[in-house]
């Protein structure tokens, strides 16, 4: 799984973590070759959503060379310079918009021109972070690494769920010369819980039912719980029926933990889900996120790690919950692409407290001093 490094070229096998590899390749300027993509699979080669990602990266950059062989099982990617600007992209319906948006979050700051990306597709699905999550916790994480977050926003214009999607978001990202070193050592305590429940092309009462069940659980922990219902009408509600709920818990130090749940897709043969179950499931997941803790929620760990690694040549420190598999791989890839090694420790708090969630991990690193070379200086 580890890369074979020959001069600047990194060679990987398999389609795992393709997105990570491509993103880091773009950031580091090192070409990657990925071989044996799903060779033993029924559908060999890169799948549709990966092609869509590569297309997106191509739109974002200038001078990228992409070579895909006939079978689609091997890919050569030589990145160009991050360009940014206005981008319009139809995402694959196999994955959510979050899949693509995450890549833009990681690359947006280092473009030549401020990014204004319009993405269309599925706004929430079970395997990707939804656009709500991107808008709340992940954006919050990103904001910590830049001094001035003017112009950094995500607008949800339309929602759309599986199977047909129809959602649309606009992501605007300013450009920055570099990210700043951070010392994020205290996550604080959860002071309020907010949320959004949405019902698309189904009865709006479902949203209320979700809210009720979620509140039923959350109110046992904290009284400050407000969950909005987002009534989407007409085109705003996408092309397929469905409903879902997104919950976020904000701490005293401004950390946001998010959790969400969407209804099953009936047309693909799954059992129709009850709104009560969806609401309760999301609430449980939120509590799980709170249990994991840290200064970022588990989904945005990798983004925080990236920003730390790319920062100035100073020490950054952060405390997160247990590392996810994704971020563990991200750390490994960072080492391969940038040679950054993090100091990882089990965090022992000075004041021993029971009931503050899982064991925390403290990450320390020295940034590589990456500065946005493509940014124009006047």
């Amino acid at each position, binding site marked *: 799984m580890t890369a074979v490094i020959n001069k600047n070229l990194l060679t990987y096998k398999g389609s795992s973590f393709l997105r990570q590899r491509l993103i880091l390749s773009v950031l580091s300027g090192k070409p990657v070759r990925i071989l044996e993509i799903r060779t033993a699979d029924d559908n060999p080669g890169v799948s549709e959503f990966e092609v869509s990602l590569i297309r997106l990266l191509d739109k974002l950059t200038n001078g990228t060379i992409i070579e895909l062989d006939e079978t689609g099982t091997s890919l050569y990617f030589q990145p160009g310079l991050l360009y940014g600007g206005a981008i319009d992209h139809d995402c694959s319906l196999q994955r959510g918009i979050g899949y693509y948006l995450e890549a833009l979050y990681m690359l947006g700051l280092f473009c030549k021109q401020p990014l204004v990306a319009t993405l269309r597709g599925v706004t929430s699905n079970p395997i990707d972070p939804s656009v709500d999550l991107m808008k709340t916790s992940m954006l919050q994480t990103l904001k910590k690494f830049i001094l001035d977050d003017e112009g950094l926003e995500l607008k949800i214009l339309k929602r759309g769920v599986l199977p047909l999607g129809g959602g649309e978001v606009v992501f605007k990202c300013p450009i920055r010369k570099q990210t700043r070193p951070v010392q994020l050592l205290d996550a604080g305590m959860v002071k309020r819980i907010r949320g959004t429940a949405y019902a698309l092309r189904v009865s709006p009462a479902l949203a209320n039912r979700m809210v009720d069940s979620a509140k039923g659980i959350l109110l046992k922990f904290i009284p400050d719980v407000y969950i909005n219902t987002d009534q989407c009408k007409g085109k705003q509600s996408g092309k397929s029926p469905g409903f879902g709920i997104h919950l976020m818990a904000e701490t005293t130090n401004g950390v946001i933990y998010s959790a969400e749940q969407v209804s099953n897709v009936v047309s693909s043969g799954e059992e129709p889900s009850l709104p009560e179950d969806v609401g309760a499931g999301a609430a449980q997941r939120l509590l799980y996120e709170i249990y994991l803790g840290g200064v970022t929620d588990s989904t945005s760990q990798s983004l925080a790690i990236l920003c730390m690694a790319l920062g100035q040549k100073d020490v950054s420190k952060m405390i997160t919950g247990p590392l996810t598999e994704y971020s563990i791989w991200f750390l490994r890839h960072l080492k391969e692409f940038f040679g950054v090694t993090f100091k990882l420790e089990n965090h022992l708090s000075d004041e021993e407290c029971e009931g503050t969630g899982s064991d925390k991990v403290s990450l320390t690193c020295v940034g590589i001093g990456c500065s946005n070379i493509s940014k124009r*200086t006047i």
Partner: protein
Amino acid sequence: MEQSEDSPLDKKKSHRDRHSGRKAEKKKKKKDAQNPVLGESSDKQRNPKAFAFNSAIRAERRFRRKQDIETKKQHIPVVDRTPIEPPPILIAVVGPPKVGKSTLIKNLIKNFTRTPLTDIKGPVTVVTGKKRRVTFIECNNDINSMIDLAKVADLVLLLCDASFGFEMEVFEFLNICQVHGMPKIMGVLTHLDMIKNSKTLKTTKKTLKHRFWTEVYPGAKLFYLSGILHGEYLRNEIKNLCRFISVMKFRPLQWRTTHSYLLGDRYEDLTNQELIRQNPKCDRHLSLYGYIRGVPLKKETSVHIAGLGDLKIHNISYLPDPCPLPEQIKKRALIEKEKMIYAPFSGVGGIVYDKDAVYIEVGNLQSRSKNPNDENTAFINSLKETKIPLDVKIAEAKIQLFTGGQQLTAEELEENQLPSTENVLLYAKEKDTKDEDDLTASLENELNELRKQNSSSFHEEKVEDSGRIRRKVVFDTAEDLSYNSSDASEDDEQSGSENEDDQVEEVVSTSFEYTDLRRNKDNEIHLKIKNILKEFESTEAESFENNEETVTGNEEDAMEASSDEAEDSNDDEISDNKEKIYDSNIKWKENLSQKAKESFLDRQKSKRNMMKLVYGIFDSKPSTIEENREEDSNKDEDDKIGGLFKKVSRDQEKVKLNKDSMNVTETSLMLPWGTTTRDWLDPQNKVLVANCFVTGKWKESEDAAELLKLDDANDLSDVDSEIFGDFEDLETGQKFNSTKSNSSKDQTAKRKRSHDEKDEEADRQALAEKKRKLKEKFDAEYDDTEKTSYYDDLKISAEKQAQLNKSVFENMPDEVRVQIEGFRAGMYVRMEFENVPAEFVTNFDPTYPLVIGALNMGEENVGFVNVRIKKHRWYSKILKTSDPLIISLGWRRFQTIPLYSKLEDDLKYREQDFLALQVVDSSQDVVKKLGFRIAATGTVQELDKSTQIMKKLKLIGYPLKIYKKTAFIKGMFNSALEVARFEGARIKTVSGIRGQIKKAVSKPEGCFRATFEDKIQLSDIVFCRTWYKVDVPEFYAPVNTLLLPLDKKNAWRGIRTKGEIKRDEGIKNPINKDSLYTPIERKPKPFKPLVIPQKLQKALPYRDKPKHGVKSSERKRGIDRVAVIHEPHEQKVSTMMKMIKTAYEHKQEKLKKETKERLEKHRQEVAAQEASKGRKLKQKKKEVFRNRSKAQIREQKKGNK
């Protein structure tokens, strides 16, 4: 005085206050009585009104000015990234030739170390103080060296021959510095004794000083070295200079706080001698040494060696400091022993540690030349001269084994020694099997061991592997001390004898290497096995990693149980692995058990496990193959095979595992949203997160309950504060502790305190104490501090960051720290490079600085660089597009072909946007002609992979035929096809009538129909504005001056400029006739008369009709006046009429006059009447009022009565 004599009366004696006597006392008493408190206060306090401002505007201005000045002084706070033990300060001595640079360096070194150095080549590092080391380097008169040194020097001593004045080199250097980040610059004027006249000396000093100030900054330090005595500068002056150097502070420069770099002070050629023998021009394998400067250097970065090119670091390892700072500082000054000096290029330096060998410098030739007859020194000296290959030299070098014995050559010796050194051979072979890229850490261990053993004697024999000949060292500590003490002749002898031993072994070892080489086949087999094992090793590592990972990625429960479980499950494996590694590492160490214990303890530290979880076998060395193999070879044959089988099977397992994890769906979520977690409403689980909410228990410091209690205590203490105030001091500490322990014991029952009297009292006291502390803290925070500005905040945060940078990794062992942080500044490192051109070694000259700069991310892949440039005003030529320039950008120096362009917006031309780089033309012949070698300077604006430079192109055409608004234009295009390409394009006439290209017409070719907004004229010129993309030439030729032979280092030639090529080839530009100057002849233009058709003329009103006759005014003017002669009668009549007329006029005039007079008279009359009337009225009024007042008085009188 004169004035006073002239006017003695003018001068007045000034008033003097009495200080004693009655009057003075009286005054003093009065003063004291007035303000007894302010007895000693200042004037301002005593009389504030006098110091109050009069004018608000002026006060505002004063304030603003003060702020301006303050703000001007501020710099953006930068994070100081210098480590605790910084690298030596790099002092470059720069100046034109023959100003005394070498003499100055010699004097400085002599002053610092007391040992004179006569022959200085390359950098010399000296310990100058308790916390300061200094590296001196002389800059030779080469612009390339000047550029390189300007990029790395911390302090520049800029020498100038005062008797001559500033030379161009000085200004060139200053200009280079300005572009690459200004280091501290100190001017030094020499040759002052050449100026005999004291007055000229004074003026020269002054003019030079002021010139220097304008160049550097006003007030920059300029030193005067007044003369030379016995070939040295005056001691006092040098001492002063040294003092300045040793207290100087440096501001971090932007480039250097973002890049790591080092100045190579030693190099070693590691290439296989055999390869060199076969092909003297083969690529070399080199190691370079130096102190890391700037920021920590990461292992994976590639570097640029100025004058050589980009290289990838093959291997890097840190070595013990060859010139360390004194360990303990007891006294104020340094002891003689601590005044270390290190200059490998000049042949000075103590013990030199290498990766796998230890060298002892035997002192330079001069110091040893006391007894040149000594055969030891002669032998070593003969080895030192590297002109002849070593093997030849060794063969030639003669040695006397026993006093009075025969002098032997190497060959003879070999024959003699061969049978007796069988065991050594074996050892050499074993060593040989060690790979080049052997574990760095094992090296470190080895070195540590070496250092430990340094105290005793050291008898490690080192025979190098790949044909590189190394001297084996057998030494005692007494010995290395002996090198410092020059007097001990006995020691000398002893060391001499030891040297003898050395030589014997050395000769032997070399011969074995040849035998080794003969056994290449053996080596090949070895290599094959090695490769297999390498693969195995890596796969094993991965499988281990994977195991770890599956544990993490598995169930959430496993995650929650955290690393404890993971540890347990993996510990066995790890320990196995570890043991193996350790075994192999320490086969030459004795205390195995202790090591095992240590490693176990290490493993216990959770951080290692955490890191292992992520980075796999991070701590163990990258390749432990050799060790494993050796271990295997030590084992029985059967075991080995068994081991091999095992490995293969594991390998397959690994592959299988890999396959499973190769195509995993990628998602950043921990688990898909649908998956259920544990039930958090379950009270058992609920407890786990209860305190994550603000409703839960807070930390001690910010607990709401505590704070509430604090408020209660506040009220209480207000009521009976006196009681508690009395015995607060006595018991507080104890009581406080007790409550604290209480609180930690039962947190839930905190609010419900037992109402026990005693307990309550204790509580109250504790709280009172706590409150006091809090208040103190608050006071300290808010009362004493001056208001902090934004700038202060920035400064504080930068300082904090700097502190953190220093402290975070402080307690980590170096080998781990190096992995995380990189090789930090101040470390002495050895870098290995492969595939270095042979010319680097053959043409090596230590006087040329060896600057190794790390390339940050993104600096490796260059596209097009857009820069803003400004031509230097002293550069005499014109910069032309497509003329090559040598550019120094970042660490690099390269020749490229620039393309000059400017930004244009739609409306108008902006002021020309210049590009920015350091541009140098250094060809020697040109230098003298040019005067100033720096063509331009500038800054990089952006990088891109493509360019968008367009050339403006105007296509010109002429009307062929014009209809109303349609015209046929010819001459713009050559064919209908071309026209088709431009259909719809906008065109314009010179007079500004806009139009559009419509369609091509068949005849003539290239003609087209166009429409305009108005009718154009046949004489109009029509043009079409188009844009033409200009291709930017892609040309990059690094200036590799280090590879040039010694005498040509100064004369690097890239591609020639267009002008040079033409001159060389004798090509002359074709003359464009239009460019020639010819006298301009302008003929007056005859206009045709305006013709109006008859029909039109008729229709016109008379006014507008062309008048063919002469105009009336012209007519009048043209006709002369004619005298009129009257008839007599007529004459009579006219005179009569004239007379009557005159009479009448006279009459009228008279009448007028009379009327005027009459009117005047009348007016006067009226006025007189009015006046008299008024007078009468006044009188009457007077009478009336008088009567009235009389009556009043009378009435009053009556009333009174």
